[in-house]
């Protein structure tokens, strides 16, 4: 459960998997600012986290990688506030570091024989990928429509596809290089955060949300490639 006494308290934060590194750093700073507080982080796919929150999982703060997913939580009455957008993320092209297909721009994705992975249109990253390609006026037939961005990234890292459409913040491993997409073409995604209504420690949770949305939070997020809302 969320709290365990007056001095010692544990704050449970469920956050989208793409926030893993940034939130880990933020949590450490938050703990330093609030002695006696431990932040327990629970990362996962936004929608399964949302499902858990709605089902009564012992969570104090929920950060979603998708506006739509957050809306379901708000509609279910599980959020304590209106869940503001706190950061954004935009599309880029991930290629294996060797880049054997010699891709240099988004237009190259349409070349014959180029294997492209993208998310399924039903999920946020897929919708964003589709929109990006539309904006660029490029027609691509992907070899797979994956359920989440980490699967796409995995394929790029393993060299099984020549390119994958992912978020800027996903380009973190050495095996993967990015081919930037012009800002006016790349679609962006909104991240939302809320205090969970059932949380027994509303104050502490509120402090964490404010901390993330505040200057320190935004600065840390920016170092990982996130944009400002």
């Amino acid at each position, binding site marked *: 459960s969320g709290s365990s006494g007056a001095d010692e308290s544990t704050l449970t934060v469920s956050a989208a998997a793409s926030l893993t590194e940034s939130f880990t750093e933020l949590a450490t700073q938050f703990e330093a600012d609030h002695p006696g507080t431990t932040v327990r982080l629970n990362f996962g796919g936004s929608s399964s986290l949302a499902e858990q929150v709605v089902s009564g999982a012992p969570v104090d703060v929920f950060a979603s990688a998708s506006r739509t997913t957050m809306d379901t939580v708000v509609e279910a009455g599980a959020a304590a506030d209106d869940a503001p957008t706190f950061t954004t993320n935009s599309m880029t092209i991930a290629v294996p570091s060797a880049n054997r297909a010699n891709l240099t721009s988004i237009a190259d994705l349409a070349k014959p024989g180029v294997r492209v992975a993208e998310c399924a249109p039903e999920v946020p990253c897929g919708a964003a990928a589709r929109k990006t390609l539309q904006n660029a006026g490029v027609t691509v037939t992907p070899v*797979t*429509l994956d359920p989440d961005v980490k*699967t796409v990234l995995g394929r790029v890292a393993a060299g099984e596809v020549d390119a994958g459409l992912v978020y800027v913040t996903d380009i973190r491993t050495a095996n993967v290089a990015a081919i930037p997409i012009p800002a006016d073409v790349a679609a962006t995604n909104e991240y939302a955060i809320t205090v969970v209504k059932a949380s027994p420690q509303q104050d502490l949770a509120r402090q964490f949300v404010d901390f993330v949305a505040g200057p320190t939070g935004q600065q840390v997020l920016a170092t990982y490639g996130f944009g400002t809302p």
Partner: protein
Amino acid sequence: MTGKRRTESTPWYLVVPGVVAIAFLGLPLLGLLLIAPWGDLLPELTSEEALQALRLSLITSLSATGLALVVGVPLAVLMSRTRWFAGPWVRALVTLPLVLPPVVGGVALLAAFGRNGIAGGPLYELAGVQLPFTTLAVVIAEAFVAMPFLVITVDGALRSADRRLEQAAATLGASRWTVFRRVTLPLIAPSIAAGAVLAWARALGEFGATLTFAGSFPGVTRTLPLAIYAALDVQRSQAIALSLVLVIVSAVILVSLRGQFLAGMRR
């Protein structure tokens, strides 16, 4: 009256845990039925996408079961009949795919049969063949996770089968192949059937390794479980409807198989 005279009566110390087991397995299925969007079911059942995924699922799971049978039964026979194959390493090798989380299984399959894999690399360089993202890759992924069930079940049955019947066949002049075909196989037929059902069921439900190794493209590699997963985030009720399709189709197949399956099991 006859009820009282039956020689078999069911002792309570078996019935109590047995009923607990049934409740334990049955309640979730019942729960699924209760939250199911029955209204969506019919359109869902007949939607092009669902049918496509269902067809793909049936084709690949049956092919995977076939593949598992063709190479798995001989492996089981060797494991129970020869010293070399009976060693702990073969046994561990057969059991390990069971413990691998399916996604990691997919990673392992890529490492073996992917474009840069130890077998897939040469295949790509020399023949230009790429397995991932093809329907064949789905079959391979399903066979990889399903085969151990078949092998372990059949191996166990062979170990407890009476080898002396095989000796009797040999004294009647039956070649090894005849003995295998006309004595060994029929004797363990019930276990082969049971193992095949286990393997088929596992292949039909397979998700993680397929996704990682074969991808998820409608009509090519998106089997029913992948379609369910794809829908789970966004259209939960559609996902549940698809799950029901899977459950109902399997139930129909299992119940209609039953006659033959049980016939094999009878001694």
